[in-house]
């Protein structure tokens, strides 16, 4: 494992080092030491390397991630894994606002709580939260899954499109056009697979499913394949 230390290098130097790796690199295991709340760490990675950040990070960690497996051993500030395309981002603590905002793909795991607007405008990313999420989570969520093992704050899934929410606890309230839907065997299977990928131990049978009532936007069944 190669260690990059923020005590000796700037965020920009560390990110550049990771960006300059060749696609066939042997340097696939990295550790970032002493983050101390620094912003924009490990953003824009495009290779299937693993990066372990040893401590709490600031804003926009792991943004735009492609392929890389990034683990934050600590808490994350706002905008974690913003616009993630693929790969995995895991936080062992809590994440602040707008985690996985606008994410297109990949998996984001937050072992603790996520605060408000988790998965806002998500476009295909899968998010698994071990704890609870704050208000307006999955706001305008278009595709992907948001799994919440704890409770959800007010206005869960407001103006949601075709993303799917699995919630084990209670929602303080559901947002506009978000409704509870039947949990079939197929959904339990999907959920079980998500929890397994996230390595979060929870019983799929204990969750409820929420999604769009499709009253707020022009849902056309012909387009169902594009979500």
């Amino acid at each position, binding site marked *: 494992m190669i260690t990059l230390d923020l005590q000796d290098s700037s965020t920009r130097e560390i990110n550049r080092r990771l960006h300059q790796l060749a696609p066939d690199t042997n340097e696939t295991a990295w550790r970032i030491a002493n983050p101390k709340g620094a912003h924009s760490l490990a953003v824009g990675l495009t290779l299937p390397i693993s990066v372990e950040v040893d401590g709490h990070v600031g804003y926009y960690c792991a943004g735009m991630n492609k392929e890389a497996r990034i683990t934050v051993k600590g808490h994350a500030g706002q905008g974690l894994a913003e616009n993630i395309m693929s790969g995995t981002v895991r936080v062992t603590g809590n994440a602040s*606002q707008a985690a996985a905002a606008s994410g297109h793909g990949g998996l984001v795991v937050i072992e603790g709580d996520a*605060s408000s607007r988790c998965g806002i405008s998500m476009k295909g990313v899968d998010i698994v939260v071990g704890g609870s999420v*704050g208000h307006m989570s999955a706001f305008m969520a278009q595709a992907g899954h948001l799994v919440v093992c704890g409770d959800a*704050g007010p206005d869960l899934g407001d103006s949601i499109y075709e993303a799917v929410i699995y919630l084990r606890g209670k929602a303080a309230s559901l947002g506009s056009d978000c409704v509870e839907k039947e949990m079939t065997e197929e959904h339990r299977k999907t959920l079980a697979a998500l929890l397994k990928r996230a390595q979060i131990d929870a019983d799929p049978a204990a969750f409820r499913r929420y999604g769009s009532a499709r009253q707020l936007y022009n849902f056309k069944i012909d387009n169902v394949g594009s979500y």
Partner: protein
Amino acid sequence: MCGIVGLFLKDSGLYPQLGALLAPMLIGMEERGPDSAGIAVYRNGVPEGAVKMTLFHADPDFDWQALVHRLKKDLGTAAEGEVRATHFVMMAQIAAEVLRPWLARAYPEVRVMGLGERIELFKEKGLPSEVVERFRLAEMGGSHAVGHTRMATESAVTTEHSHPFSTGLDLCLVHNGSLSNHNRLRARLARRGIAFQTDNDTEVAAGYFTYRLREGDSLDQALEAGLSDLDGFYTFAIGTKDGFAVLRDSFACKPAVLAETEAWVAMASEYRSIAHLPGAREARIWEPEPARIYTWTRPAAA
């Protein structure tokens, strides 16, 4: 933008280090607020019947000893104090209601920054790192403190418009955000006898809490009422004589992190202002919930 910080020490053994711990917190928020900075430190309480007043004069060479002499001559009150850059912390055995009108008559150009039994309040234009240096923050002990780094958006960049704002005894407030109903509220509060020194929105919030406390609210009640009466975006950190509070509006767009250990409670706009505190990595760290009141109070002095 702006950055706000607060530090409340639970372990009195850390009191001598308050300023030294707070200074990097404030400097850590320099990028969020390079226009001006300010701190309110709660320390060295005056005996009963006495008052502590932080005064400001734009001229760094202003003769504060002359002011002390004139106070003695006019009112027969002995005072002592300490100069920190453009500020003078004065302690006198006199009621605030007597001292204040005298000051306004004798020295209309001198501004009262903070007033009470324990508060000392310093604020100035310039980079937070310069402001910290100018006021020698690192050498100040105390029980708790709040600080602010300002990126001005809604009123002028002057010392007077800098945070913290203090409108009542030992109460002060720092704010990240902007209030939208401050003009109407200022007029309402002015009619009820709350005095304002500027056209700044945050001063209105400080005035509002002062008014509620004056009317008999507890700090928690005043903050609860603020949730419905203050319209706009805000994360507030509030200091009182013996307490510290954090409040965010119900949308919670303005960032905040809280961290707590056995020894201290810290609040900042970003975690990087907390990272240097002893035991920060193992602290309980969370984002304060919207519209929820967080308060900590110092145990009553023995």
